[in-house]
């Protein structure tokens, strides 16, 4: 037999020997350890996302409050409300009083908080999908 054929036949045999894996006795335990680490990875990722979302929400909320945007919006809202009330009462006297449309600071902060929570859920879902 030519030497090259002997070489390739030995190499083929060697590959086969490598492929013949001995079944290790603790294979099930090893599987559990890997799955445990997979789960820990997911838990850590979820925690990280949660912490980052909370930190982002706090920073965003703080920036919003400290910039005076709430007061400005409340003033604008109050002016619009007065304008609306005056004009609508001229048109439909006593039928509709849009008092519920007042945009004050509490309403705005609640809306911002809900938007942040929704955004947090959305980002968490998006990262999980990725």
């Amino acid at each position, binding site marked *: 037999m030519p030497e090259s054929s002997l070489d390739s036949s*030995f190499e083929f045999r060697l590959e086969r020997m490598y492929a013949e894996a001995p079944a290790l006795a603790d294979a099930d335990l090893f599987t559990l350890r890997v799955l445990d680490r997979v789960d820990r990875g997911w838990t850590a990722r979820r925690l990280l996302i949660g912490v980052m979302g909370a930190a982002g929400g706090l920073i965003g909320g703080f920036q919003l409050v400290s910039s005076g945007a709430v007061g400005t919006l409340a003033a604008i809202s109050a002016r619009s409300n007065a304008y609306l009330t005056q004009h609508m009462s001229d048109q439909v006297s006593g039928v509709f009083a849009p008092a519920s449309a007042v945009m004050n600071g509490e309403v705005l902060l609640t809306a911002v908080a809900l938007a942040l929570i929704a955004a947090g859920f959305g980002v968490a879902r998006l990262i999980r999908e990725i």
Partner: protein
Amino acid sequence: MAMAPTPKRRLESAHDLELVGLAARGDRAAFGELVRRHGSAVRGLLRRMGAEPSAADDVAQDAFLAAFEQIAEFRGEGAFRAWVSRIAARLYVKRWRREARVDLMADTDDAAGAEVAPGPNADARIDLEEALKALSPVERVCVSLCYGAGLSHAEAAAALNAPLGTVKSHVKRGLDKLRARLSPGGDDDQRSKVSA
């Protein structure tokens, strides 16, 4: 997307590719079945590369975690086992180079003896593990990368960050030693050479 786990009996009879698809969609049990099927092979390869059992297990775990992270990239062009084995072998090489600080350029002929001594009992079956002990650590890693993990010489050279020629010569020397040990009558040949 997370999904409801597939029944265990169905997983046991499923093909690797089907399990990969399920695992890519977040089925943890399907990935567990893949680990159960191929964990021993990956750990065995790392031990054959020269890793201590505990180190082999650590690297194998890291390799399966990496495989889980990248499972969507597995296109099924080769076997799943071969894919994970390549990941594990590369991870082990990184660790081995960091910890052992091996000089890949060193001539290893003296490390394990260029002339392979006959085995302790020529009639006894000499398995791969025993035969690999005749190789120097560098030869062992190079041969295992190419014949165990299925890397080409160029890929092995890239993984080892070594010149291609160096890797080829380590592989050749390792193969010569293994051939002397594993070929039918290899030990007899050695003995007859000694007696001549």
